[in-house]
């Protein structure tokens, strides 16, 4: 109640008049009442009433926060957070090595950034996640929907159909092996059409459309409350050209990052961004670093860098608050994002290299 007038979210002209009239705290405004206020500072009674309603809403919000009530508050103890984190689901990627280094999969309420050179598999992983977020809970998924914001035009529906078909088949196999009732029921709704209908696709052609879409995203997510994943494929592409003013770009990117963090937290969804690589020219050599500059590096909570080693694709966990830095290999198959197949364990004599203590099988014992 002792809040200063200058900090209230009123129109600037109104604030200037209140300051000129000598009002200092919110309590003074509430005590004066709308008629008195309108006479003193020379505005209409309706405007005064509106202003007082804003002040009252602000002060009630303040009071609720100071009294420690929950609701829109963002305060809790670490124990509550621990309980929340332990029951929270992860979005699996179908590559168990990648899930392991991420600590279970892509985490909800966090921003994950995937950087890599062109063609290394960033969009493939995004499409895989858009399908995997919809896996029913009885199969270990989060049973959510996905929003896919595409700035590069690399979203291929036919590829998503392939990935979704493989995922559905995988779940069918599990259900057949385990024969449980809720598995069968979940599979009725987990069909190809349902999966495709729950991927909400937006094609943003430049950075203004991207900004506009992110401003409208909270409203969209409130209407579609089952969304658990927001993918922005190509956050770098619209910001890498037509920008003479780099400070404007940094400001817009920071604003974007803040809004995405709020969206991730409020709607309990994972935000996945893909970034491009750019060449940083040093004194003696040039290195590939993630694009959009150093300050953008602070936006994402978890950073994955995809790169090549000869013909093997590797993923490195570059930045994470809870997992250690490590590199794994992955594969992109016709079914989607997968592990690299481990070397096959054969029953012939070569297999004994794995375990030198075992007696080598002779040719007669082989079938």
């Amino acid at each position, binding site marked *: 109640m002792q809040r200063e007038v200058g900090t209230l979210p009123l129109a600037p002209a109104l604030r200037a008049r209140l300051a000129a009239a000598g009002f200092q705290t919110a309590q003074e405004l509430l005590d004066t009442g709308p008629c008195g206020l309108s006479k003193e500072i020379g505005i209409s009674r309706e405007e005064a009433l509106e202003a007082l309603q804003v002040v009252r809403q602000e002060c009630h919000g303040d009071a609720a926060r100071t009294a420690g009530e929950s609701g829109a508050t963002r305060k809790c103890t670490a124990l509550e957070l621990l309980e929340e984190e332990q029951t929270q689901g992860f979005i699996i990627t179908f590559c168990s090595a990648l899930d392991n280094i991420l600590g279970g999969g892509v985490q909800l309420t966090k921003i994950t950034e995937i950087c890599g050179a062109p063609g290394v598999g960033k969009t493939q992983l995004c499409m895989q996640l858009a399908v995997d977020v919809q896996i029913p809970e009885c199969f270990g998924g989060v049973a959510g929907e996905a929003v896919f914001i595409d700035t590069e*035009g690399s979203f291929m529906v036919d590829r998503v159909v392939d990935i979704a078909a493989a995922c559905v088949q995988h779940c069918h196999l599990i259900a057949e092996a385990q024969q449980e009732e809720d598995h069968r029921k979940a599979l009725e709704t987990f069909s190809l059409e349902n999966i495709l209908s729950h991927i909400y696709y937006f094609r943003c052609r430049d950075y203004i459309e991207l900004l506009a879409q992110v401003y409208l995203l909270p409203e969209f997510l409130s209407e579609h409350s089952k969304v658990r994943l927001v993918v922005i494929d190509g956050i770098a592409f619209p910001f890498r050209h037509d920008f003479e003013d780099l400070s404007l770009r940094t400001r817009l990117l920071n604003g974007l990052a803040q809004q995405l963090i709020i969206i991730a937290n409020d709607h309990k969804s994972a935000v996945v961004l893909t970034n491009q690589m750019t060449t940083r020219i040093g004194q003696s050599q040039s290195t590939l670093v993630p694009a959009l500059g150093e300050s953008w590096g602070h936006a994402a909570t978890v950073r994955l860098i995809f790169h090549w080693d000869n013909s093997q694709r590797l993923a490195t966990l570059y930045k994470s608050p809870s997992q250690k830095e490590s590199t794994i290999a992955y594969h992109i198959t016709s079914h989607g994002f997968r592990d690299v197949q481990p070397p096959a364990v054969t029953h012939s004599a070569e297999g004994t290299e794995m375990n030198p203590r075992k007696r080598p099988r002779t040719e007669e014992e082989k079938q």
Partner: protein
Amino acid sequence: MAAKKLRRAQLSQEMCERLSRYQITTCQDFLCLSLLELMKVTGQSYYEVQKLLCKVSRACAPKMQTAYEMKLRKSVNPSSAFLSTTLHSLDRVLHGGVPCGSLTEITSPPGCGKTQFCIMVSVLATLPVSMGGLDGAVIYIDTESAFSAERLIEIAANRFPAYFDSDEKLFCMTRSIHLYRELTCCSVLKRIMSLEEEIISKKVKLIIIDSVASVVRKEFDTKLQGNLAERSNFLTRGASVLKYLAEEFSIPVILTNQITTSLSSVPAIQADLVSPADDLSLSE
């Protein structure tokens, strides 16, 4: 979309006038400001400004479609999704041919046949749909002056002798291939920007740019200061306009590129072979 005037974003007349006094006339100017700046400029309270922001965003934001709707739209007209190259093994690997609605890049060392391929595909695009073509005109942007009209006629007459049996048919085909010779990056970009109207008026069904690399390498030397940024600026601008044209009109766009030597210690990127039998996930 960005240059959309605020008047058309359904803001009130007086608000538009007030904003124009601060030189804010388009949606782009409006959305680039922070909330506090907007409050100062519009003179409204915090909550009002958020509502205005949502209004302006709605005017700019793209329309939502589900992946299912996209798939249905594609399956309605499957034949128009690809331009067959008539090379059967290539078509098989590409799952049908050169895809419509996206950019395809062809690169090779000099002399391998990029320009020949482009000339052949131009002929194919002018053929009627019953013969596997797109029945439309072709825009050919030539930066190396390598296009030969005589070679075009030779290919057409020898490849499809039954169809091009008269001179009349040949001339009809050549009339629908529009050739533009551009020799600088700037003119290439200007030409790409002007293509939208040409596509509609001339009923164009294929865009070929041969080649992007030659103009870029002539004008930008990456060892010089600042050239790298300008070059990527030019390339991404061109790419985004071409992507827009390809998607908007559902036509294929073919670009050719050249080979360069990568001198870094990092080994060159090689293609990854798709493994045919992935039983790992099924055996879990």
